[in-house]
């Protein structure tokens, strides 16, 4: 018999990277929130690589931060090194990546959750949902605790019917030998959700004392202070390096000889693995002409000797893993502390979700993170914060929040998931964003802060600093529009020393800045730059002026796209009543149930004629709707 364990606005199942952002966003918006997790010592645990950020992902972390999320702040406090990537490239593709101190990250995150007044944090395994009249009303745990809730967010990661695979060893488990979530997955299936099976893997960890670093190349962090969060003011200066080594022909020979022992190649695994995160077996088989592959040695923290062997993700038996590791230069005497493994798990087919991440089937139920078929901590956190916002918005009677593809990578991620689905664990890449020149690392605050503030997730203080920053940016741009630079001997001499061609006639400082070889910092002496302007302000001025033409072109494209997004489709439209739409398109439309013509046009298998017909049908006004 169950017992009444309490009443909440929002119940978050799981406290990984999605769960913590979901719980905190909901709580900060004013919803009474319960967070249930299997193990309180594993909050925001990183079961795979010890790093956060990277191309596209690093920009997502900044977007989360500008929306009021915590991932950026916590990694700023707990990293062992940080780098700005792609500094030699354009501003649109630069991104931060930090190596995390895993145990410290957990500790810091737990502290934040524990101190959030609207959150009750509790250990517990959820077995099933309470669903009444098709609406989600709460959860029941294995200890028979029944929690009633207005909304529930499931963020169970790779735990659902998780199965660890290593050689011929196979056992039911969540990542890192934690208990798997079996009954909840069965319950979701009973409730009619379509479930798919994905897999991913992780490499072995070795003991730092047993690595000969002299045979490897050092990979230090940046010397300049960096931070993900726009609020971070204190920087970590004593950074720890990573190290680079390589596999070799001997390594490849061992793998080739033992392929049949790999859980993956012996045909036991049914799940679909991601192409961008292949096991070392995959790499050797698919790219057999490559004489070597990079191996990065990444410390897992300051107070641990475990080192993550990036590049050696494998599901080979433990005994073979020893030989593989020891075939690598610098690792000849390395001791494995944890062996690598593959994990197979249930994921929800994400086209079953609205763009708010609420399930179409069961109102009040949201899902976020790896359960939705994604991969990566950042992708999980991004969905977590959006699910948290939308669950709280629903409870509080506010409008749902859906980011479009021109606003944020988060928008690209969720739109891709709910519109196209995915047939492998989904990872964000810069190439997935059509408008990546607008979705930059440097302007995440400009894109998200206003929204975060309106939702109550950004403090007054931070909002004031944000508006002041962009007031200064606009002011400085105006000043440069008016400032005329004459081609004096001094100016041309200056340009020459800066490696730029001299000026022939007077130009506005604004136009001078458009020259690719000239930057704001470089021109500072001849454009009377105000030294009190912060680097953030001048950086923004420089980028906005230099790429103005391209930014305008992108904005024109966005305007066209938004026109299509503004054409709304009623949620309950009856596609069967529309004559003329092709059968395949009709089936797709019935599954995805797009909310706008724009979204409908992105569904594969729905062609322009179907879209035209849909537009005409909606415009004529007499829309047939599904009986509820």
């Amino acid at each position, binding site marked *: 018999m169950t017992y009444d364990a309490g009443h909440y606005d929002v119940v978050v199942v799981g406290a990984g990277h999605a769960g913590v952002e979901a719980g905190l966003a909901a709580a900060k918006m004013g919803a009474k929130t319960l967070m249930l997790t299997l193990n309180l010592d594993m909050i925001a645990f990183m079961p795979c690589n010890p790093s956060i950020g990277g*191309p596209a992902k690093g920009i997502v972390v900044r977007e989360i931060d500008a929306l009021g999320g915590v991932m950026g702040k916590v990694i700023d406090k707990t990293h062992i090194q940080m780098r700005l990537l792609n500094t*030699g490239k354009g501003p649109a593709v630069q991104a931060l990546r930090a190596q995390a101190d895993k145990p410290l990250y957990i500790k810091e995150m737990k502290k934040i959750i524990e101190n959030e007044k609207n959150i009750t944090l509790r250990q517990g395994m959820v077995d099933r949902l309470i669903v009444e009249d098709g609406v989600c009303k709460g959860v029941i745990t294995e200890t028979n605790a029944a929690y009633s809730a207005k909304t529930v967010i499931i963020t169970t990661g790779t735990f659902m019917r998780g199965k660890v695979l290593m050689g011929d060893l196979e056992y039911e488990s969540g990542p890192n030998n934690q208990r798997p979530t079996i009954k909840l997955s069965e319950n979701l299936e009973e409730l009619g959700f379509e479930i798919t099976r994905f897999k991913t893997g992780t*490499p072995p960890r070795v003991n730092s004392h047993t690595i000969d670093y002299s045979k490897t190349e050092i990979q230090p962090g940046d010397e300049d202070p960096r931070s993900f969060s726009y609020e971070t003011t204190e920087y970590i200066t004593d950074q720890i390096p990573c190290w680079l080594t390589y596999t070799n022909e001997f390594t490849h020979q061992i793998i080739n000889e033992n392929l049949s022992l790999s859980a993956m190649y012996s045909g036991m695994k049914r799940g679909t693995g991601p192409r*961008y995160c292949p096991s070392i077996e995959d790499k050797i088989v698919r790219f057999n002409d490559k004489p070597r592959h*990079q191996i990065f040695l990444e410390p897992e923290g300051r107070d641990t000797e475990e080192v993550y062997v990036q590049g050696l993700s494998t599901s080979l038996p433990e005994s073979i893993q020893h030989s593989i590791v020891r075939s690598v230069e610098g690792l000849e005497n390395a001791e494995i502390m944890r062996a690598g493994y593959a994990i197979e798990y249930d994921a929800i087919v994400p086209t079953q979700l609205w763009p708010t991440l609420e399930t179409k089937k069961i109102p009040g139920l949201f899902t976020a993170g790896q359960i939705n078929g994604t991969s990566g901590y950042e992708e999980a956190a991004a969905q977590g914060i959006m699910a948290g916002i939308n669950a709280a918005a629903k409870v509080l009677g506010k409008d749902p929040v859906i980011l479009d593809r021109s606003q944020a990578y988060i928008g690209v991620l969720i739109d891709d998931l709910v519109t196209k689905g995915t047939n492998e664990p989904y990872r964000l*890449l810069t190439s997935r964003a059509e408008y990546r020149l607008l979705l930059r690392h440097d302007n995440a605050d400009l894109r998200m802060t206003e929204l975060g503030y309106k939702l109550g997730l950004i403090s007054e203080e931070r909002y004031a600093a944000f508006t002041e920053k962009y007031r200064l940016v606009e002011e400085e741009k105006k000043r440069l529009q008016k400032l005329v630079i004459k081609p004096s001997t001094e100016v041309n001499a200056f340009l020459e020393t800066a490696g730029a061609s001299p000026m022939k006639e007077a130009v506005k400082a604004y136009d001078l800045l458009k020259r690719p070889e000239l930057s704001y910092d470089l021109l500072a002496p001849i454009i009377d730059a105000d030294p009190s302007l912060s680097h953030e302000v001048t950086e923004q001025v420089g980028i906005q002026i230099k790429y103005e033409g391209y930014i305008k072109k992108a904005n024109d494209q966005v305007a066209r796209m938004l026109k299509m997004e503004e054409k709304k489709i009623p949620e309950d439209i009856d596609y069967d009543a529309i004559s*003329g739409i092709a059968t395949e398109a009709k089936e797709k439309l019935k599954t995805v149930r797009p909310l706008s013509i724009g979204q409908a046009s992105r569904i594969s298998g729905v062609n322009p*004629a179907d879209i*035209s017909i849909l537009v*005409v049908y909606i415009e004529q006004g007499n829309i047939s709707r599904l009986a509820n």
Partner: protein
Amino acid sequence: METDTITAISTPIGEGAIAIVRLSGPEAISITANVFKGKNLFDVPSHTIHYGKIMDPETNEIAEEVMISVMRAPKTFTREDVVEINCHGGMVAVNRVLEIILSKGARLAEPGEFTKRAFLHGRIDLSQAEAVMDLIRAKTDKAMSVALKQMDGRLSALIRRLRQDLLETVAHVEVNIDYPEYDDVEEMSHDMMRTKTKEVHQEIVELLQVAKQGKILREGLATAIIGRPNVGKSSLMNTLVQENKAIVTEIPGTTRDIIEEYVSVRGVPLRLVDTAGIRETEDIVEKIGVERSRQVLKESDLILFVLNYNEVLSDEDDKLFQAIQDLDYIVIINKTDLEQKLNLARVEELAAGKPIVTTSLIKEEGINELEEAIAKIFFAGDIDTGDLTYVSNVRHIQLLRQAKQALEDAMEGLELGLPLDIVQIDVTRTWELLGEIIGDTASDSLIDQLFSQFCLGK
């Protein structure tokens, strides 16, 4: 609601009649005025018609003498500003005018789009909604199948190759961005990118030149002449060419060989398929085998099946009748100047209602009847066929021009020394535009390319 201006040729093809290019949208009048020599179209009263000339903006020469009707919103078919440019009949003039209008910023209308706009602006009664949707469906499907069929195999192969080149380049830039530490590929340099864009640019420029010569502009019905050896196929071919004005002679630089493929029969443009094969050797069925010839037949819009009045029906003739039974064809009984050996009743039975014409090509008899039969088949059927066929070609040219422009933007960015990820925006755009030509717009291919070209992972 709609902000752009659309245009299309709105009359069926017909020589002797006029052909009309129609524009609808807020810029209909300004776009036309831009290339019109005559009265100031901004000042003329609504619903009036004016004589003048359409000027080619590139050469500043007269492209066509026209009559222009100006109709201002809302009392028009679409309830937008509408301009109709009345050109001389035939394909070339009207196509040229359409191209000029497109180059000035109008967009080629989607199938059924004028009607759709009329509907959306409330011009058409709500009860007609379903009919409008059916119309769009039908026109779009037809346009798609025609566009695909029309495309020269070599052209689509070339476009595919150019796209693959661009895709590999883009994937290379992307892998540098998404995997900055990945050391298996050298970092893409401005020079590498410059070489690649120049190569592709050159090919697109050449394609556009070819297009100008009319090779791409393959308007007209794909027509196959079939029949056993010595029935008079090549005489028929010669007659059609001699009797009728060859369409592309108006375009300078076209060679005699190509001219002969295009003829206009009473305003019906014909593209004679596999001409050389028929002329030099025997029968295409013999020449390329039954399976291949079936394929050729299937791709034809019209088949001219020639029989010999002086021979009895053979098994082979029966087979040919069978092969074309579901297609549009005309039976031509040739050599009526010789003794009759053909069983006419049997031919009528086999033809099952399809037109039968008797000719003596040597004596130049029956040619008028044949031409009439061709015109009848064409105009009685769905007259959109021809219309859409050449519009799809104009569409190709338009997309090629845009692709060329996008590449030039990329090349400019390279010269300015902009970062490659910025330059790549225009390269990707080029790739997308070329994709629209061959109907491949799947955006996932880049990601697929990325992972098949490079060994990536953690």
